[in-house]
């Protein structure tokens, strides 16, 4: 076999490695074990350069998935650390507002209407004579609840609908995509004004449901595209060739590889949903008093902005910081998950 000789001559590993085989896989009578040798030749130089001492070698054996890689990147990213700390702080504030404010946000004294800063009331009083600081702290709960629940709902519906449309294609895809287009085409503020003004209930869940209904098409588009891309990969074909059914293909192979862009879009959407809740509340169709919400406070403060700007600035500032924190987090997560940056 002249060809075989030619290959062996061209292959430095074929000669260099035969004596060094000491891995347990090297069965005695096997003439070549080049895969393991390849591995050794790949690992050894790095090991020598980076870690002169042997113990560090174990670090390379440790398995790292894409998520672990992403987490390593994130931990070093200052934007992630700042936005993450802010979000943790906001969540704590939403769950236990009593830790931060001792005053009841609904205990108001009209005689103190629009008064400025006084002892124990660092942000002053609003129109009704309520404590602005307490209302800002307690308002976090409504914003975070709406943001998190609406995002979870929209991500769930969007991922399932878009994912199934992308996976099965054909007429199902056409139908789902057209329905998504219809919801996508509804202007979100106009839809909110019409839809929420005819619903008698004032529950926070109505607002969440409305945002989910109008928000899922965005996630569905992303997940459909992502699933179609992943579906064409060879490893999906390989699993199909092994006899894997649709559910295994979707759960084991497609979903884990398609979920990264969905997470990124959902994180960024979370910030915009919080802003949307405030907008709807400002327009008088979202949350309604006595629910404490930044949007409601901004709305009621906007009339007397020139007399008492503190009533507007504190809830508006809290809202801006919250939205910014979530959008920055989404940005950092996108950078960490983007394979092009690796």
């Amino acid at each position: 076999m002249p060809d075989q000789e030619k290959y062996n001559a061209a292959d430095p590993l074929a000669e260099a490695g035969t004596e060094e085989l000491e891995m347990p896989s090297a069965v005695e009578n096997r003439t070549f074990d080049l895969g393991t040798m390849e591995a050794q030749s790949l690992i050894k130089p790095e090991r020598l350069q980076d870690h002169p001492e042997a113990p560090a070698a174990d670090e390379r054996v440790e398995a790292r998935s894409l998520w672990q890689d992403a987490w390593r990147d994130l931990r070093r990213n200052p934007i992630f650390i700042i936005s993450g700390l802010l979000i943790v702080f906001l969540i704590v504030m939403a769950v236990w507002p009593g830790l931060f404010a001792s005053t009841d946000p609904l205990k108001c004294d009209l005689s103190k209407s629009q008064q400025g800063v006084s002892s124990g009331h660092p942000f002053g009083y609003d129109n009704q004579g309520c404590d602005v600081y307490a209302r800002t702290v307690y308002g976090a709960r409504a914003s975070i609840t709406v943001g998190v629940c609406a995002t979870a709902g929209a991500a769930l519906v969007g991922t399932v609908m878009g994912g199934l449309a992308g996976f099965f294609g054909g007429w199902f895809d056409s139908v789902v995509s057209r329905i998504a287009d219809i919801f996508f085409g509804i202007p979100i503020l106009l839809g909110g004004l019409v839809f929420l003004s005819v619903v008698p209930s004032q529950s926070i869940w109505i607002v969440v449901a409305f945002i989910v209904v109008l928000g899922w098409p965005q996630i569905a588009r992303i997940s459909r595209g992502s699933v179609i891309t992943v579906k064409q990969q060879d490893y999906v074909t390989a699993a199909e060739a092994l006899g894997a059914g649709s559910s295994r293909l979707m759960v084991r192979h497609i979903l884990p590889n398609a979920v990264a862009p969905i997470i990124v879009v959902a994180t960024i959407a979370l910030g915009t949903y919080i802003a949307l809740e405030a907008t709807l509340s400002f327009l008088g169709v979202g949350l309604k008093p006595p629910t404490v919400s930044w949007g409601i406070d901004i709305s009621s403060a906007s009339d007397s902005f020139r007399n008492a700007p503190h009533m507007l600035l504190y809830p508006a500032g809290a809202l801006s910081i919250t939205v910014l924190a979530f959008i920055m987090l989404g940005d950092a997560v996108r950078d960490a998950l983007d394979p092009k940056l690796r």
Partner: protein
Amino acid sequence: MAEPILEVRNLVKHYPLTQGVLFKKQIGAVKAVDGISFELHKGETLGIVGESGCGKSTLAKVLMNLERATAGEVLFKGEDISKLSGAALKAVRRNIQMVFQDPYTSLNPRMTVGDIIGEPFEIHPEVAPKGDRRKAVQDLLDVVGLNPEYINRYPHQFSGGQRQRIGIARGLALKPEIIICDEPVSALDVSVQAQVINLLEQLQGEFDLSYMFIAHDLSIVRHISDRVGVMYLGKMVEIGSDEQIYEHATHPYTQALLSAVPVPDPTGREGRERIILSGDIPSPANPPSGCRFRTRCWKAEERCSTELPLLAVPSLEGPAAHESACHFAAEREVEQSAA
């Protein structure tokens, strides 16, 4: 000769070309595979060569039942498998497996090597009982020349050659009788190519495998194949033993392909005569009438455009007498240089 393990009869795969958004109207078809017949025998390697776009990979997908054949039969041990579905198809998949071209996309990046090679056992639990699976996966890693301790690693921690070994281990897991290799080495370095080819040859002996080896590198195909089929535009133009094809080609297209093989010897390179084909490969959506190759063939005559040459043994003497789809099949009258 032994009983054929896989028999392909007049296999056709057309992809419809449609127009319109809502009411799709078929306006034509891409004839990716257009009437191919061949046999694969037990323990044999059949090489399939041809330039890009001639339908090699489509042929592999149809044989694997990843694409439905438009017409024709694929007989595995006498049973037509091209129309199976459901449980019967799943059972037949155990016997025919595939090794993919690109080792970087054929392994799921979110699964460990152990999960990737163990997945066939999860899909076909009857092959290995649950308790034995880890051991079975480690054995497979050992068989393909990888360290069994790599079981918890992820694909991105391996080189291209190692990944291809993982792909081969996955293909071997169900103990198939036939492995279809779709350009298994074309994405690898030359030195690693040789290792993977040698591994495939060694496994063939160990497990009595039959290979269908698709490639566009003629020297690798010659190295590994017992028989070689040459494809052009969805048709098999010539098929025979590797000596018959490489030394006594009778189809003009095969002769042109062989003359384009790079020769590593500069002195031999001067002396040989290359056949340079003019024009591009025609569109498979609108192939030429009669012989598919006539638009680029120097032997083409009136007859070639009206009459389709069938794959048949021409009336020639000696090793040139093998199946060739040409009206004017003849060995080329040139002194073969020392290739």
